[in-house]
């Protein structure tokens, strides 16, 4: 197990280094001059030159790359070109929105999907199965921004229970912050839950067809115990895989939902940074996301080992 973990972490580190080079090079090629973008259409050439010097854009590419890598290794992600504050500080502020949002929606989607999936599998072919899987099909098909707008009109405009968007900051109180994140979390969670429910159902069905289930039932074990104890545990591997992927998506792939709810999250930060050619911020956020995906994958691997003891001894 330890050797397995060490190997996974080593591979993760190599991936990080490769990713850093790719990210840096790709962004080098992207057309657009951040200084020109800031000073606009009336900019004088000498003002542009002065700003480029100030931003450190006049240094050679390799020097900037190694400067950036070395800085990151020491925990310094550099300073944003547009916002004149440290990249790490910017990311820190945004993570405080994106991480709770991802966790709440992950919790919601799991809490909905697992029971529905298991329930549907246990009633295979019966009306309950058809109805819940039909609902899941709709859930997958509905675009989440549209669903978000429906939620806004219902709960914010009509019932006025929650704000229509925005984030007051955690210093406005835990409840105020949670309320602001609730609708976006639901909007994000539902399509995810639909996918997860379908995965759970098919994994369960596969397991339920195994011989040991039949044996357990034949021995007279109650259906409920067989379902929750024997079957679910074995069906969890594909579910965990999907959960890991979903978490990575929820952390950064939420640009559209963050726009609809105008939340200051990581997705918005990276979107804004790209349009502003604030490359150092883009690089910083992408590296953080790469690191997160790698970490989540390692965690999922550990999860596999917990669920399936056979994987613990495998080298």
């Amino acid at each position, binding site marked *: 197990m330890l050797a397995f973990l060490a190997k996974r972490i080593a591979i993760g580190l190599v991936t990080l280094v490769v990713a850093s080079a790719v990210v840096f090079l790709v962004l080098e090629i992207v057309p657009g001059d951040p200084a020109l973008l800031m*000073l606009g*259409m009336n900019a004088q050439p000498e003002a542009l030159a002065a700003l480029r010097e100030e931003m450190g854009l006049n240094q050679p590419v390799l020097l900037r790359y190694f400067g950036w890598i070395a800085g990151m290794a020491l925990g310094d992600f550099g300073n944003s070109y547009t916002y004149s504050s440290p990249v790490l500080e*910017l990311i820190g502020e945004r993570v405080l929105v994106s991480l709770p949002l991802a966790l709440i929606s992950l919790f919601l989607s799991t809490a909905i999907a697992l029971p529905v999936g298991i329930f549907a599998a246990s009633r295979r072919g019966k009306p309950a199965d058809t109805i819940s899987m039909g609902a899941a099909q709709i859930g997958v098909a509905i675009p989440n921004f549209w669903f978000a707008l429906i939620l806004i009109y219902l709960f914010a405009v009509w019932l006025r229970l929650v704000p229509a968007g*925005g984030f007051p900051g955690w210093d406005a109180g835990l409840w105020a912050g949670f309320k602001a994140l609730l609708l976006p979390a639901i909007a994000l969670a539902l399509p995810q839950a639909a996918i997860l429910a379908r995965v759970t159902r098919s994994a369960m069905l596969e397991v339920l067809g195994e011989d040991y289930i039949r044996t357990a039932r034949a021995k007279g074990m109650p259906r409920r115990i067989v379902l929750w104890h024997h079957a679910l545990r074995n069906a969890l591997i594909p579910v965990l895989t999907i959960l890991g992927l979903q978490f990575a998506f929820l952390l950064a792939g939420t640009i559209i939902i963050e726009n609809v709810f105008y939340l200051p999250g990581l997705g918005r930060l990276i979107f*804004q940074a790209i349009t*502003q050619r604030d490359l150092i911020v883009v690089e910083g956020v992408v590296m953080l996301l790469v690191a997160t995906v790698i970490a989540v994958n390692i965690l999922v691997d550990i999860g596999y080992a917990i669920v399936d003891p056979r994987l613990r001894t495998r080298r």
Partner: protein
Amino acid sequence: MNTIKSIIGGATLLLAAGTAALAARTDLVIGVVLEPPHLDPTASAAAAIDEILYANLFQGLTRIGRNGEVLPALAESWEVSDDGKTYTFKLRSGVTFHDGTTFDAEDVKFTLDRARAENSTNAQKQLFAAIDTVEVIDPQTIRIMLSAPQGSFLYNLGWGDAVIVAPESAETNKEKPIGTGPFKFDKWAKGSSVTLVKNPDYWGEPVALEKAEFRVVPDAAAAIPALLSGDVQAFPQMPAGDALSQIENDPRFVVAIGATEGETILSTNNGKEPFNNIKVRQAIAHALNREEIIAGNGSGYGTPIGSHFSPANEAYVDLTGTYPYDPAKAKALLAEAGYPDGFKATLKLPPPAYARDGGQVVASQLRQVGIELEIIPVEWAQWLEQVFKNKDYDLTIVSHTEPNDINIYARDDYYFNYKNPAFKEVMNALDATAEPEKRIELYQTAQKIIAEDAVNGFMFQLPKIGVWDAKLQGMWENSPIQANDLTGVKWSD
């Protein structure tokens, strides 16, 4: 469900009635589409900065009023020498910056010298190009000598890029802006909002609002529910074009269609074949149907223009009839120019709806006369680099939002590649003239020259579509300068 709603509604009404009885509201949440990159108007071209801070937090020697007029601000009065080269400003006394430091002539000298210094990163450095020396006479008097007379100098000093900053705070204004205005900085929640609060020590007439929050609402679909739910009470520039009818019929809101300084034009590369041929440019002008373009520009609003000048300006002349819509004539002109079967060209479109949506209409109109356009969508960064800087384009659509910017047609090396000595002469004469009537005459001549030369396809003046709570008074309907001046805004009870 209905019972729940009426209970909740009743409770809200009670609450609202309770607060209304006490006093009129003094807080305001304003929706803006773009977040400012930082908060120093003297170091960026981003309109988002001026739209929050101009006149509210920062002030210049002069300021631009509601109708584009030049008004005194930190300068109480001024005298101009007969040769138009010496300006002596009498400054207001008893003015302090928000950090408590005193405002005097030294701050003015510092600001102007900083803006025109060699390492200046001021986005509108050309505003200060005419300044030769800045001299402090006494703490309340400053004298500015110009190297040549400049008729627009007082106007230039009213730009957001010319606001007065203090040497003590200039370096930190990007994060914590310190000005002299009626509002002072409270906080900036990055990605969310910028909040200003009333400055109790303001030198002038105090503002009615205690607190003004500028909240970033980037998505058009989010803007309407934000208004309907009462989270945001005003959008000076409403992003939602086709959803506007939803608000227009609602008595709780006011929809104000005003004018901006944004001439929306089909910019043409005058230095490139076949656009260097005036007949081709005239043909394009005849092929454009302005009414149709406005109908398809994303909002359906806009005033047709025939030159590069705002209809709100007193010197405006209507030149839309110079080359009226006439596809047959356009075809004839193309044939005369040697393109009887038309030609192919590219049309680069930046992100705003007026360009992306309007561009489709323009392309179909030009196809009618035989010009096949390949549409290339570009981001702003690409547009600035390819079109604006490297002049690598045939046609593009863009709104020139800087106020009073007809002088760009006199600029060498500008992306239009337009060179006309006669036009430059008019601009030089304009600089040397201070008399208002003469200036109007010169502006009109300038408009006619570029209209007749069909430098670009002149389409429409970008509208300012403002939406706000009907109980809100004093919001600006037009935007003669990129700003949301809140000094006269208050709630009626």
